[in-house]
């Protein structure tokens, strides 16, 4: 009985402490920031195509994504991406820059646990499931296409 009461009190406490995001401003912010990140990506891609017109479209996209990943990783390192993330929510998670951030951020945070068990292990806490899901589902799709 005592325990039940205590759990209830604790749950209420947690509920009160969870930061509440007001839906409408956060939706607008995520739209704005997500749109801007994608537009920057398009700008980088167009610049690459302009400077290297002989490049295949697929290759140009490869460079674009690597550059975006680099920028996001650097911004995470100097602590700017977290600030963008607080403002943008989903707008900074869904683009490929969010994927990059999700790898760099824990790598830096757990650096003090050492290079192997800190950086190398922890960098996959979020990216790991993403890569696993991607690999498994793409293999399934490939096998399905084998038979149709």
């Amino acid at each position, binding site marked *: 009985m005592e325990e039940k009461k205590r759990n209830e009190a604790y749950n209420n406490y947690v509920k009160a402490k969870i930061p509440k*995001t007001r839906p409408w401003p*956060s*939706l607008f912010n*995520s*739209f704005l920031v*997500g*749109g801007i*990140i*994608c*537009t920057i*990506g*398009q700008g980088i*891609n167009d610049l690459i195509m302009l400077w290297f017109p002989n490049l295949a479209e697929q290759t140009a996209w*490869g460079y674009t*994504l*690597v550059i*975006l*990943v*680099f920028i996001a*990783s*650097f911004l995470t*390192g*100097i602590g700017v991406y*977290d600030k963008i993330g607080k403002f943008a*929510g*989903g*707008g900074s*998670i*869904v*683009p*490929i*820059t*969010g994927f*990059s951030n*999700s*790898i*760099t951020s824990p*790598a*830096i*945070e757990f*650096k003090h646990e050492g*290079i192997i068990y800190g*950086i*190398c292990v922890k*960098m996959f806490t*979020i*990216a790991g*499931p*993403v890569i696993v*899901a*991607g690999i498994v*589902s*793409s*293999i399934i*799709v*490939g*096998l*399905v*296409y*084998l038979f149709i």
Partner: protein
Amino acid sequence: MYYLWVFLIGGLVCMLGQVLIIYTNITSARILVTFVLIGVLLEAFGIFDPISEFAKAGINVPIIGFGASLAKGAIGAVRARGIVGAFTGGLEATAGGIAAAVLFAFIFALIFKSKTKS
């Protein structure tokens, strides 16, 4: 002019992520997994390319594009090399992004200190 489409569609896709956060309280790992799977499905059903045609970076920069290239790579390799392609194609197509993310994360983790504690 297509920059407007890039902005609008990219913004909408990212807003969808925010909608998921607000109404289901899911974590960022689940969001990324969800969107990668969406990308794989879109490519598998052949819907991704028509969208990509006019949305360009608006659909390729979100992690949906990552999922789509995984599936595209797997499908292409299966057609070219048979069953082994299902295993090699996906990662081959996305290796650049993954390798870059891991390399930069490693380098910057060595250089920078955690900002949250200070």
